Structure formats: structure tokens, C-alpha cells
């Protein structure tokens, strides 16, 4: 273990804001992208169903 304590870990030698500011934004952006991809797939499936109802009538 290279960190003396968790506090030490989060502080990142006084650069916590920069390090965690980077990684949190990366995590946020990637999660949003995954969510957007999921939503798009659901919408695409919904579109197919809509189309089916159109043709059934």
C-alpha cells in the first residue's frame, strides 16, 4: 500500500481536485454515453413496434 490513509489517497498530494476532477468527468461522460446507447436501442425497438401497428391496421 503506497497510501498512509484514505484521506491521503483522496488528497492526492494536494492535487485531489485535478485528479478526481478528471476521473469523475470521465466516469460521468462514459456512463451517459452507455445510457444514451441503451435509450437509442429501446427507441429503435419502439419504432419497429409502431411500424408494425401501422401495417397491421
Amino acid at each position, binding site marked *: 500500500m503506497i497510501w498512509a490513509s484514505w484521506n491521503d*489517497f483522496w488528497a492526492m498530494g494536494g*492535487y485531489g481536485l485535478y*485528479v478526481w476532477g*478528471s476521473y469523475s*468527468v*470521465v466516469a460521468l461522460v*462514459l456512463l451517459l*454515453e452507455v445510457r444514451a446507447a441503451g435509450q437509442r436501442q429501446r427507441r429503435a425497438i419502439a419504432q*419497429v413496434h409502431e411500424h408494425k401497428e401501422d401495417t397491421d391496421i
Partner: protein
Amino acid sequence: MAINWFKYAAPTNFYGLAGKLIPWFAGFSLVLFAAGMYIGFFVAPADAQQGEFYRIIFIHVPTSILSMVLYMVMAGYAALGLIFNTRLSAMMASAIAPTGALFAFISLWTGALWGKPMWGAWWVWDARLTSELILLFLYLGFISLHASIDDPRRADRASALLAIVGSVNVPIIYFSVKWWNTLHQGSTIKFSGTSMHVAMQQAMFTMLAALWLYALAVVLARVRSIILERERHTHWAQEVAA
């Protein structure tokens, strides 16, 4: 075992294959991501000159590399689509663009947060940072052109041509920006004189692999949605969505 690769050039066949591959890519990506973070934060020691904030490069360097690789892959697919008129290639190109743009954005964001403690400025007109910014512009141009054309066939072909023109231009842009940078004796990003610790390299390459797999998974997921959107009027789509 002979696999008929051409079979998967048909979007409807590819849809199933992609669906099977995505969980694997996503799973391995998560594992490697965790491993990379562990090595990066718990094994790699502090850098002699940069202290702790150098750990930003574990995410900065892989996303920068991938944003450039993805542009080239995108242009390659675009060219394939234009030359051989394969629909799947064009769909791949438009599925790659958002992820590439996102990686370019992450690269700029983390670059700024790394630059502030490094040089005392959020942004320096370094050749590589500037090129990355222009790359982001190229991605945004591709996405907006594709989005503003209603006819999907024309959208595919027009943005493919733009991607190819862009990829021919990228080396010229990079060269000119570098030339401009040396002319003005701007700052150049250099890693501290000491060679990189082994654990640092391991962390960076693990993260690179993780993000690569992530990009594969999310691009394939997006391509599946695109296929479904385009094929919504077919029997095939009705069966898949049922």
C-alpha cells in the same frame, strides 16, 4: 473452421453477431478498467517531479490515442462504404463518430486539468493539444453533417466523403500546427526526464486496452440501433423486436 465473413457484411446478420460480442467486450473492458485503476492508483508510485497529479495521464493518453485511431478507422469504414457501396460500413462510420468525439473531449478536459498544475495554465497552445481540438472540430463537423441530411443514403455518402477529406487533411493539419508551434517556441509536452516506472506503463496500457474494448462495445451497440432504425419496415426487424 471456415467462416463466411461476407455473411456478416449484411447488416441483419451482423446484428446478431454484434449482440453476442457486446457482453464480452463490455465485461473484459470492466475487468481491465478495474485492473488499470488499481495499478494506476495503488501500485504505481508518485512521479519524482510531478508528484501525484501525473496519474491523470492514465486516462489522458489512452483517450488521446483512441480519438485519433477512431477517426482513422471511421474514415476507413467511410471509404469502404463509398467504394464498395456496403451499407454496414457507412453505419459503422456513423456509429464510431460520437464515441470518437467524446474521447477527444475527454482528452482535452483531462489535458487541461493536467496542464494547470504542470504549467500553471488550463490551456497551452501545445501542438498536440491544438491538434486534438481540431480533431474534435472534425468529429463535430461529421456528426452535424450526418444529422442535417434527412435521406439516410445521402447522409451516409456525404459524411463519408467529408471523413475521407478530413483524414487526408489530418496529417497536413498536424504538420502545420507543429510547425506553427516550433515557430512560436510554444511549450511542448514532455514527460519528466526520468524514464517511466514499469507500473506506470502497465497502468497506461491496461487503461488503453480497457477503453479500446469499451469503444468496441458501445460502437457495436450503436450500430445495432442504427440497423434496427433503418430496417424497421422489414419482416426481419419485426421478428427481432418481438
